[in-house]
């Protein structure tokens, strides 16, 4: 390690500069947010593993379902839709769930365990900017995932959604709610080794009873699942594809309520330090 002392002149100006700019807020929170978003994106797109798993898995699933159900016409089993008309939005929904809730909970648990969060918390970066950066990242990933799934669905003959605006709103609200739940669950996970197991323990039954992989015709089941976060998201994603109108306000309200629950848990118990006091 060689030391190169900075020249004395810059040293002096540097000190004066610091005294003159004591308040960290002067530069503007939006510029800081843009900075954080940029580097969060850079970290993600550089990591080949996370990219492959985030984008390849939904592609594989929709391709397999497409191969299995291609050519099916409107059937009662799929509520009068073709198999692919049903699966394109639900698989898209699963990919959003995975990218926001699952990935985020695991990434945060790992970053906490390795001390990345602790180091970050020692800088003046405000917590809200950090989480906003993660949210934007998750929305970007979700948009790419949904676009890939819809695109492949189109190749199998599924018509474009009838209401793009409803789809967009559902996607952003769903991504935000599942991000909040992801941070909430990350707050409850004690060590990162357990994170994938805890995440799946919650996600797998939810996806199952919410009709993501096969339609559910039990009213009792649907009523229960309708109060949990995944089925309302599925239904709100399905609507623009099923030509039964766009905005599903009731479903979106349930989804948003779950987002608030996740956010409250996160605010109350999120930890930056790997070792609790």
């Amino acid at each position: 390690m060689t030391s190169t002392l900075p020249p004395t002149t810059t040293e002096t100006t540097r000190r004066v500069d610091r005294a003159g700019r004591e308040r960290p807020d002067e530069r503007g929170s939006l510029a800081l947010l843009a900075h954080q978003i940029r580097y969060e994106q850079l970290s993600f797109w550089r990591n080949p593993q996370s990219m492959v798993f985030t984008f390849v898995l939904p592609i594989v699933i929709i391709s397999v379902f497409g191969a299995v159900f291609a050519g099916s016409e409107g059937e009662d089993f799929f509520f009068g839709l073709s198999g692919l008309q049903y699966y394109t939005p639900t698989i898209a929904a699963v990919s959003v769930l995975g990218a926001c809730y699952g990935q985020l909970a695991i990434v945060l648990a790992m970053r906490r365990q390795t001390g990345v969060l602790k180091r970050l918390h020692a800088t003046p970066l405000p917590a809200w900017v950090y989480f906003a950066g993660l949210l934007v990242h998750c929305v970007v990933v979700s948009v790419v995932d949904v676009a890939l799934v819809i695109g492949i669905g189109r190749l199998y003959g599924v018509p474009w959604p009838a209401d793009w605006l409803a789809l967009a709103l559902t996607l952003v609200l769903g991504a935000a709610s599942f991000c909040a739940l992801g941070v909430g669950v990350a707050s409850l996970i004690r060590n990162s080794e357990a994170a994938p197991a805890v995440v799946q323990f919650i996600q797998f039954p939810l996806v199952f009873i919410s009709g993501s992989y096969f339609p559910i015709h039990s009213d009792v089941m649907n009523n229960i699942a309708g109060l949990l976060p995944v089925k309302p998201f599925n239904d709100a994603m399905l609507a623009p594809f099923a030509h039964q109108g766009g905005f599903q306000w009731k479903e979106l309200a349930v989804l948003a309520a779950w987002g608030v629950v996740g956010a409250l848990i996160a605010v109350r118990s999120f930890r930056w330090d790997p070792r609790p006091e």
Partner: protein
Amino acid sequence: MTAVAVEGLLKKYGDHEAVRGVDFAVEEGEIFALLGPNGAGKTTTMEILEGFRHRDGGDVRVLGRDPGDKTDGRRLRGQIGLVLQDIAVEPYLSVRETIARNAGYYPAPRDVDEVIGLVGLEEKRDAKVKDLSGGQKRRLDLALGVIGDPKLLFLDEPTTGFDPGARRGAWEVVRSLRDAGTTILLTTHYMDEAQALADSVAVIAAGRIVAAGTPDTIGGRDSALARIRFALPAGAAIDDVPVQVSDAEDGLVTAEAEEPTAALHRLTSWALDRGTPLERLTVEQPTLEDVYLGLTSSYAQQEASSPSTERGSTPSSAARARRGRRPGRSRR
């Protein structure tokens, strides 16, 4: 000006009092070393100052602010830097990107390339973090600690695992930061490091400061007796030696003297008259390590016999101690 003031600091983990009434002050512009065995309360004290942990009592001021006051936290965090023992960096960014990212978090950061030069990572500027060696990652960590141009820098065992050359280099960086006006509070297990770097030292044992001063005077080091050691010449008995010496240990006898010049003169005259050299002759003042071991040994025994040590409540400190004994290894 006082950069850090600690008075009567208390911290409990359950029933165990990890820190029980610690007082010390770090003056602006100095290098202050906090020394102590594992589990003595060193890391807990540092983490309270860094704002990571709450205290149970006492008063703490860091750059005039209370690190426990969360409403003021952001401004304080803009003025301090820290280098922790665990290297925590995103693996897929380059060295420059990692430093530039953190630079953006601070109100008035240093120049990114200047900091890369300061820690000697110019050649690794565009290398991915995951491809760095353990020592290079530590240097990157140091760069992240100083990129915000801190007034106060915390260094937690900054050279653990460094090879001797890298340690000297790191010392130069720390000194140059001090000379540029940064106050530095460091912990270390290496007494030669404290001797070489620190303007002031304090020794913490069993949750209390047991001695404080400069490296040269702490624990009465400056007034301690000098020790003259040599091998007893063949055919000479202990009673033949013209100064009083202890029994032989490892083949060496020891004489103690307040001022060694006269005693040496008598010894060497005696040896020359006999025509036998004083083999393996050394004269030494007690080192900082001697003083440190003397100060902490009684507490170490006490701690070892106590069932609830700090180690019990901070599981990673044992791992840290393991790492400390295996130089050159890094966790990733």
